[in-house]
């Protein structure tokens, strides 16, 4: 009992860490319900209803989900490919692993800027296409930034997320992959079967928390979207910022609804992460 009390007391410092975001969430939720902020006219579900009924909201949610899914899937596949390719202890493989994780500390805003300079209509790709005789003016280059499919944004996010996921994949394969693969091979599995039934399940289990973290981060990433996303449909972080900074103050509660929604989604991701950690510990 005393130990339990001590444990509970020791939880206090963690409040220092979790309280500010929870206070922020609380304020966003109360402002979205008309209880605080510029539209504090008393409890109302009006703003919530308006945001939920708005086509713009769902277009933003759908587009953001598309970007998060596509970026995470491409980055995961590339990370798995890198981990499967550069897994030996040879110098070449070590260099391969090192180069693969090089963009890790580079800020997202820099990745977005580079993407703009490469994929813009007068960017490097367009110049290569011109040199190859594919077209003669920048206008002929299909739009790859500010485009509806978000190709430039996906490119920047994939470039930025591959190193993080590759690093996890390298670690997982190094610590847990070898023995299972050897067993599979000794049981007569060919290379493809070994990958499908031994390597992939181990990789996937080990990478899953990282994949959840990447998808959550990408969905809420503001700076990459601000430099590369189109204005129609707006990405969810851009829509939130637009509503928050709009001169028309009556739009402010909408921003609180959207911010509260984003924070709740991230809390759900945290809960999933917590469950995964607990499961992994039990598994050990």
């Amino acid at each position, binding site marked *: 009992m005393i130990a*339990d009390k001590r444990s509970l007391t020791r939880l206090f410092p*963690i409040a220092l860490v979790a309280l500010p*975001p929870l206070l922020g969430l609380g304020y966003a939720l109360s*402002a979205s319900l008309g209880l605080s902020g510029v539209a504090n006219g008393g409890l109302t579900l009006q703003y919530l209803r308006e945001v939920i009924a708005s086509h713009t909201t769902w277009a933003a949610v759908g587009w953001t989900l598309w970007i998060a899914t596509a970026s995470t899937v491409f980055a995961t596949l590339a990370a798995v490919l890198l981990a499967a390719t550069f897994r030996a202890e040879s110098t070449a493989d070590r260099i391969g692993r090192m180069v693969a994780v090089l963009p890790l500390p580079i800020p997202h805003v820099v990745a977005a800027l580079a993407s703009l300079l490469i994929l813009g209509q007068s960017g490097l790709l367009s110049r290569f296409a011109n040199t190859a005789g594919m077209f003669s003016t920048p206008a002929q280059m299909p739009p790859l930034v500010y485009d509806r499919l978000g190709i430039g944004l996906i490119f920047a996010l994939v470039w930025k997320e591959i190193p993080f996921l590759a690093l996890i994949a390298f670690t997982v394969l190094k610590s847990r992959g070898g023995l299972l693969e050897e067993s599979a091979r000794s049981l007569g599995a060919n290379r493809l079967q070994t990958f499908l039934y031994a390597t992939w399940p181990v990789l996937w289990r080990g990478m899953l928390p990282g994949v959840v973290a990447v998808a959550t981060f990408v969905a809420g990433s*503001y700076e990459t979207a601000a430099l590369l996303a189109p204005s129609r449909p707006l990405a969810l972080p851009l829509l939130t910022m637009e509503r928050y900074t709009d001169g028309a103050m009556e739009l402010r509660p909408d921003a609180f609804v959207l911010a509260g929604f984003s*924070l709740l989604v991230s809390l759900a991701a945290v809960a999933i992460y917590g469950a995964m*950690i*607990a499961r992994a510990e039990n598994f050990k």
Partner: protein
Amino acid sequence: MWTALPISVLVFSSFGEGWFYPRLLPTHWSTAAWGELVGDRRLLRSLVISVWLALLTGGAASILGFEIGRRVSRIAVPLRYFALTAAFIPVAAPPLALGIGLQYFVLRAGLGGTLTGVWLAHSVVAIGYTTVYFIGVFAVFDRRVEEEARSLGASPLVTLARVTLPLHRRQLAEAFLLGFLVSWAQVPLTLLIGQGAVESLATSVMSYAHAGQDHLASVAGLLLTLPALVLMGLVGSSIRRLAVATV
């Protein structure tokens, strides 16, 4: 090539002159854009602000993360999982949504548009990262060393100062870098809490890019990139533990 191309483009853009469509390479090279670092006070000021913010955030995050992680690691399972999950909240919360929620409190405290306000906002996120990091560090720390010191008559404070802290010098340095990087790359919190009055290097990249000033945006982008790469080189094998900061 996949890794190097984006950085090469920034180098071309910052050092190249006469790099007009459809040229693949600039016609000649120049340091004129880099000279703006001295000439354009705005860029220099944002560099100084970024360094200052990152140093302060790294300092606060490493010290507080150490102490909170140390205390949390003494909590019994399953409450420790709860604490770990709680520490993960500021890490997972989208900075934009976090900034919108926090802005009210920062404004009430009279810290809107100030360096202190932005530093506190950056620290909220960075302390989350370093706490998660130190919970991991202390999970594998052999406490018998501390118990030995206590049994020899050392007070808790002396044990902390003479035993625990010296044993974690490297981890404290890594946590400092972690906090530094979190602040260094932060955009939405700086925009919302800084309210335009506090411009960091990361927000400068955005404003130069939006204004079509590619040369200056590239200079600011490379200035953001180089320290991050140097730090990665310094921490070397520890990069796995720091990776989470750069998701």
